[in-house]
């Protein structure tokens, strides 16, 4: 257990440091009280985290399967509970609503449960965006360090294997986390600089670069994204959405120009191909929608199509203007969202790797009708999968389907329109909060309640779905059968 506390201490220290960013914004915006409050939260968090680190620093840091799962599930429940306090203070909302905001931000769902951003302090908006940014990094690290080695849900195994010698594993994890944090931060700064170059004002550029890198969906202010920027800004954000949705392993292959590995890799190419297809589809849709081409011009139209496609595929859910997704078939939109991004990325969803594996497996089974003696390749790009992996993937898929059904029924029972319940459940599950909006509502339909108008019960149910989706239903499995997972 000491390893769990030690790593919780590390993450806590990092999140405490992240709180200093909104504090700086607060001081810069003349919100001194908010700034002091955030510094105090950061100091308290740092004190607790450092205490944990000091208390557990001398003990063995062996991350076995049980510890890894416990840390992943425990951490993603504990930190929103803690981060809800500063959020509650900044937005002046009750703890329940703040918890929804904390989960929504940390899981990069970006479901705005507050509303009326123009009335909110800059520090609060920056706090939420910064937590979202940290959540994006935390997502990649969770899968890279904790869940990847356990192969839960058929995840492709990472290089670290569970049960390695404690000293080696701790060094490896620290090195991996350090280099990934540096890379993620550098990419965010690069995105910020590019957005500034496109003419976006600094505060908006910061919030949007946080959103882009984490595949989140928070905006710096009310209104619609295309009003904030221009076509170039949309293209920049689209590029970083794709960066956020593709595997960090692929990024490393590209960075080191490992030709052989790049040739064998598949997932990221399918993902980029999907963005291209959705972009083409949206371009045609926009071009045939009366008035659209005249208002933005062909290049602006293409940029907007690219932005919405990248947002959809990366499970950001952000739209260039409210209701863009409704120009497409809802089944198509939610299918793309459910598929999600790539493994070891900040994106949500089932992941291309799993969908690819299921499709290959299904194709193999179908081909057996023609060739009963055929031997299938059983691989998707660089990843090999045996029957055990396929079982894990199918189990994860079935559990996800159950969560979606249960979630939508629960929300409907709480008073949300049933179609709205399904939409909200999917949006929460794949962490694409902005994808749920009343633009989907058939004309004259009631019951499509905005996030900020939802009752606390609905918000907490959605927060639970966000966490379950974010942890790829492992939390449900642990909750249903803790002995089997944690003590086997």
């Amino acid at each position, binding site marked *: 257990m000491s390893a769990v506390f030690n790593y919780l201490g590390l993450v806590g220290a990092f999140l405490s440091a992240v709180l200093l960013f909104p504090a700086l914004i607060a001081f810069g915006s003349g919100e001194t009280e908010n700034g002091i409050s955030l510094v105090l939260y950061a100091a308290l968090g740092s004190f607790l985290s450092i205490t944990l680190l000091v208390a557990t620093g001398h003990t063995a840091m062996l991350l076995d399967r049980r510890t890894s799962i416990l840390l992943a599930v425990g951490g993603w429940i504990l930190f929103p509970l803690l981060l809800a306090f500063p959020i509650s203070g900044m937005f002046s909302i009750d703890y329940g609503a703040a918890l929804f905001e904390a989960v929504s931000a940390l899981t990069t769902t970006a479901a705005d449960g507050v509303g009326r951003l123009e009335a909110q302090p800059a520090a609060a908006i920056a706090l939420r965006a910064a937590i979202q940014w940290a959540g994006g990094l935390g997502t990649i690290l969770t899968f890279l360090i904790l869940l990847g080695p356990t192969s839960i849900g058929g995840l492709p195994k990472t290089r670290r294997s569970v049960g390695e010698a404690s000293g080696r594993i701790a060094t490896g994890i620290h090195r991996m986390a350090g280099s990934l944090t540096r890379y993620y931060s550098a990419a965010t700064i690069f995105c910020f600089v590019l957005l500034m170059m496109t003419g976006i004002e600094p505060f908006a550029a910061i919030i949007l670069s946080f959103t882009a890198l984490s595949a989140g969906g928070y905006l710096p202010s009310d209104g619609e994204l295309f009003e904030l920027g221009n076509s170039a800004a949309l293209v920049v954000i689209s590029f970083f959405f794709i960066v956020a949705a593709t595997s960090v392993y692929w990024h490393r292959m590209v960075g080191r120009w490992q030709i052989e590995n790049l040739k064998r890799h598949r997932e990221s190419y399918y993902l980029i191909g999907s963005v291209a297809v959705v972009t083409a589809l949206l371009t045609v849709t926009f071009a045939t929608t009366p008035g659209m081409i005249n208002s933005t011009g062909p290049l602006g139209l293409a940029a907007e199509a690219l932005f919405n496609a990248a947002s959809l595929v990366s499970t950001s859910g952000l739209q260039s203007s409210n209701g863009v997704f409704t120009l497409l078939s809802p089944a198509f939109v939610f299918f793309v969202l459910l598929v999600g991004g790539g493994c070891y990325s900040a994106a949500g969803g089932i992941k291309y790797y799993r969908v690819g594996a299921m499709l290959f497996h299904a194709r193999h089974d179908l*081909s057996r009708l023609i*060739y009963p*003696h*055929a*031997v*299938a*390749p059983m*691989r998707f790009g660089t990843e*090999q999968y045996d029957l055990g992996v396929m079982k894990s993937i199918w189990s994860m898929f079935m559990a996800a389907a159950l969560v979606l059904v249960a979630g939508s029924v629960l929300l409907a029972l709480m008073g949300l329109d049933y179609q709205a319940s399904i939409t909200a459940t999917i949006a929460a599950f794949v962490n694409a909060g902005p994808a749920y909006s009343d633009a989907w509502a058939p004309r004259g339909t009631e019951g499509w309640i905005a996030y900020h108008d939802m009752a606390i019960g609905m918000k907490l149910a959605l927060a639970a779905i966000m966490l379950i989706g974010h942890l790829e239903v492992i939390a449900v499995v642990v909750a249903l059968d803790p002995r089997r997972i944690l003590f086997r």
Partner: protein
Amino acid sequence: MKIIICGAGQVGYGIAERLAKEGNDVSVIDNSAELVQNIQDKLDVRGYHGHGSHPDVLARAGAEQADMIIAVTLHDEVNMVACQVAHSLFNVPTKLARIRAQSYRQPHWQNLFARQHMPIDVIISPEIEVGDVVLRRIALPGARDIVPFADAQVTMLAIDCDEECPVIDTPLSQLSELFPDLNAVVVGISRGGQMIAPRSSDQILLGDHAYVTCEQSQARRTLAIFGKERPEAGRIVIAGGGNIGLYLCRRIEEMMPTARVRVIERSRETAMRMAQGLDRTVILHGSALDEALLNEAGIRNADLMVSITNDDQVNILASVLAKKLGCGANLALLNNAGYHGFTKSLGIDDYINPRSVTISRVLQHVRRGRIKGVYSIQNGAAEIVEAQALDTSPLVGKPLKELELPDGMRIGAIIHEGVVSRPAGDSIIRPRDSIIILALAERVRLVEQMFRVSFEFF
């Protein structure tokens, strides 16, 4: 020339046989006393019992005076170490090794065989050689054998002259008149088991095997003139999924995007390995002698059945069965030379002898002078040689009709500055021209001398 051969198996024996026949000083090393005794009894070679990579054994075999070492034992690592020891301790100038594991041949590891690491001059992979032969047969199914020369600008085709052949009884000189724009020459004819280098007045008879050199782009037309024009095999069934099968399927996937290939492999593990390495090929697990499995592979509509398992008998039976079930043509890998004689009577259209393919490749590098390529035909009865003419060569500077080439040699093509031309009486060979020439076994040494780099050259 003093040559050491490590390995007295089928390939080692075949190389030793050919080199000894040509008057080379051959020493053979093997760790099987029985094989060493056998080779000493049958050939004019010295045999040494021992491990081919051990310095003391190599020293006993005369490595200090050796001009070349040919390491063709069953084990890649022994072959590699034998070459390394021959280089480091005995300074043997030329080192050839047979290396089968494809891991050593991966392009990104090719630096392994650099001069400063493991200096092996020539690496021969029988699987790749055999795979390339099969590929060429698939591309030109009418020919019994296809060998590229001069960077694939020229092709040598071996053609069976049967009832379908419209040029039977036609003098060769008349062929040139009938097809003046055809860059093709009949360089050799195997008649009744005997190899001849024909003259222009000779004619092709029924039952001959003609060896024709032609410009690569005219290979199909040449086959059509000999009545052997057949479309490229598009539906292929392969029996056997070992290294050759995997290499073959990979190359087919790369080169023939429309080809449909089905592989039947007995070992599940090998079948799985193949499936993981291929994208479009269907791998079936089971026996190639199972009629139901052959039908599942679509043998009735297949253009070609390629049997390349490790078992000659399986290859023969699978080929015969495939033909019986409706397959268009078959090609079998036959290691045992004893089976070669009756393939036709069994209904096997064509066969590949991996041993002769490997031996031919090895011998290519044994030849001296400016010889760039060699292919041995009819079990060594003749060789097709690609050589570069030097200023000092007796062939240079005179019209061919004035050269008075001895019998047993025939020039098939002249490549001047990348342009292939058919040799005629007034053709003149210029320095640095490449020449494709057939030489009967007894004339090979003479061809070597014609293209040897002499002191005059410097």
